[in-house]
């Protein structure tokens, strides 16, 4: 049923461009799809920063000025069964800054695919408690340049992740979601053959840190709107700091803490068509930009391959 679908709140790593997180709160929210439902999403957004953390030190850089990342993100979701759905996205990103003479970079980034499985569903008090697990991977779809941060549109790593989600929703519409995941990221190959980070490496390979991330969200959901506020974190489990006045590097320890709000509105004009928007402010970090991100877009949910059966509210 149409109301039991997901919302779209994309948030990006701005210095990292980790595509998987563009799907955060999509595949990773507490809402499900029913069998045969197809969801098409198109989003556009921008992320900007003028300050970044060099290691743990927040600074500006007049030779970067204001950094802007523009993102276009199409996404598909499909309900394989009432309990299992899959999601796929490939963002197009353009990173540039308004000062200095560094080349800007743009292109299609990583294909990210997630499968989401509902594990449990129980009545608890005056609401429903749901739990989910997700499994996913991502892979670059172009040979974009990972070793030219902060302008690189991504880190070029293949990734795989697992995630657990808990979601509780009162019958009156108030809900809360907590989710956390672990993202494994593979080594990448770069054009340089020698580089220094915490040591001198004679290699074209760079190790990319794994990430532990998650979010806590609370909000209200009914047949017309869904509103939420949340806190997100993403913490690298290894990696080096940007040295003073040095350039960033794909193997940096990038940590990110942000707070955001999001909203979804089901249009009364076309059944299954919704508009959504989000804003996200990084509040603490390490080796990333202190960015503000907004995104907005449309989503359309329908059952293309089967006749609609009678709908039944379950949430």
């Amino acid at each position, binding site marked *: 049923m149409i109301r039991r679908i997901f919302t779209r709140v994309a948030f990006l790593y701005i210095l990292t461009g980790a595509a998987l997180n563009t799907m955060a709160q999509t595949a990773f929210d507490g809402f499900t799809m029913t069998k045969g439902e197809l969801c098409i999403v198109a989003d556009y957004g921008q992320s900007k920063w003028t300050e970044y953390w060099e290691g743990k030190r927040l600074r500006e850089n*007049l030779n970067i000025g204001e950094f802007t990342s523009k993102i276009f993100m199409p996404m598909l979701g499909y309900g394989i069964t009432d309990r299992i759905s899959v999601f796929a996205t490939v963002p197009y990103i353009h990173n540039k800054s308004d000062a200095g*003479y560094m080349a800007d970079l743009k292109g299609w980034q990583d294909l990210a695919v997630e499968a989401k499985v509902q594990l449990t569903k129980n009545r608890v008090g005056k609401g429903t408690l749901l739990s989910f697990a997700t499994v996913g991977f991502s892979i670059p779809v172009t040979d974009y*340049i990972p070793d030219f941060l902060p302008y690189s549109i991504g880190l070029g790593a293949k990734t795989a992740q697992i995630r657990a989600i808990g979601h509780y929703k009162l019958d009156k519409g108030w809900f809360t979601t907590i989710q956390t995941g672990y993202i494994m*990221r593979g*080594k990448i190959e770069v054009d340089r053959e*020698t580089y220094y980070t915490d040591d*001198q490496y004679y290699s074209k390979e760079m190790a990319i840190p794994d990430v532990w991330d998650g979010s806590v969200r609370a909000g209200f959901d009914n047949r017309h709107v869904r509103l939420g506020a949340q806190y997100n974190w993403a913490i690298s489990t290894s990696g080096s700091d940007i040295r003073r006045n040095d*350039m960033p590097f794909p193997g940096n320890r990038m940590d990110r803490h942000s707070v955001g709000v999001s909203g979804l509105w089901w249009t009364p004009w076309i059944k299954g068509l919704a508009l959504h928007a989000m804003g996200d402010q990084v509040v603490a970090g390490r080796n990333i930009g202190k960015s503000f991100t907004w995104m907005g877009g449309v989503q359309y949910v329908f059952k293309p391959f089967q006749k609609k059966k009678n709908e039944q509210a379950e949430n």
Partner: protein
Amino acid sequence: MSKQKTNNIILTGVAIAAIFVGCSKEVEQRSLPSFEPVAVENNGGSWKTILVGNPADITISAPEAVGSAAYTAELEQIADMQASITETDKRAINKWKNSGIIRWNEIARKLVSVYNIPPEATAEGNYPTPNANDPGAYPKFPFANPPYASRAYAYLHVAIYDALVTTWKYKFQYKRMSPAAQGGAIKALETVQEGLPSFPSEDAVVAQVSYRLLRVMFPNDSTMLAGERDEQKRAKVVSGVAAPSDIAAGEQIANQVVEKVLARYRTDGMAQAGGNPALWAEAKQAAVDRGLTMPWESLEKPARPGMLMFFGNVKQFLITTSQRDSLRPPPPPAIGSAEFKEALAEVKRMSEVRSGEVWRIAQLWGDGASTYTPPGHWNEIACKSIVANKFSELRTARTLALMNMAIFDAGISCWDAKTYYFYPRPSQVDPSIKTIGLPNFPSYTSGHSTFSAAAATVLGYIFPAESASFEAMALEAAESRIYGAIHYRFDSEAGTDCGNAIGSFAVKLGQQDGSN
């Protein structure tokens, strides 16, 4: 679908995903293979030195005879060390068993990478200068930019070479072989080169020279450097290659050579290479008076003084100041001329290519901040060929001395041209040209091209079978700066010509040094 089945699918998915990504964070690094030198170089003591003059002027005390009480006591000491050898000793022996010079070259390269970051501007918009007398304060001393690095590599390897020529003189004067070759209880825990006397120890010479020079160049790291030196010396004693008195004689040579080399190092004009605002303005005005219509300006914010604008006045090894002037490249095209416009258009075209071979080559040879610099890149290339050709330690020293003198002199001549012509970078003329990272000094001529041509010329002389490949690499390095949109083609071509000319001076020196 049952819960069990679902769980199985998830677990399988995780396993497949982990394999797909690859779990290891271990970066696979290239390293040089082990090798045993072929030649003993028994005439090495007669090779021509660079700075120290006659090796006989460097004196050491004669060794105790094999069979003397003192030497026998040394052998007993080594036998005890071998009897109680530790895992640390074994690792050290393995680490230092190949060329010690190459190890120290790697240490120098790493230090350059550590210190090769331009200082950050202060809140007031000034750029602080590293202070050798307070090296630990920000910005730490030194800023190991390409000129600084070229000079460090050159002095290090000139000193090692001169000290080893002296060492070879005494090796074949006294002909005392290594403890392991004495036929006693001492085992050779690494291969001992047959026919090469161990008094004085070439390893001790290399360790002590490297330690003493690098600690002047990188004073914050003297503890680490002393540790490396001590480790190398001890490894050679434990492995049976050198007796403590072999080591001590090596230190005597090293210390005397270092004094002579440091005397030149401290008075070669580097202290004045930074210049001051009045001198910068004067140099700029001189270029304008010669007809330049758009003098170079720093495009950094806040504007940063050009990097070592008077490095071109530092004393060279291979050529005199008047030779430098006569080798100075001809003037670049007038700004706005047809030739200039064509070159600028090429840079603009290249600046828009951000993929494929153009980008790869620009990055491969970038060697910018936080790297061992182009001179370091050529040192790595040289070491690879040295190992492949199984050079003796003495011939390794000669190779790196000749190449690094050429690179250093090439850098000086290049910087001389940069300040003399004061020519703007492409992005200054056309701010729409974006780059791989714009260097903060004038454009004409290209440093990468000059360094690389000089290095390739010397390496091509020493390793003739690879000369075409060195030349191709040097041309690729020169080309890479156009690909990176920071140099005009005429910058690279003039730099290559000048580098080749300076390299040929090193070749001439090599042809006449008695090593052939």
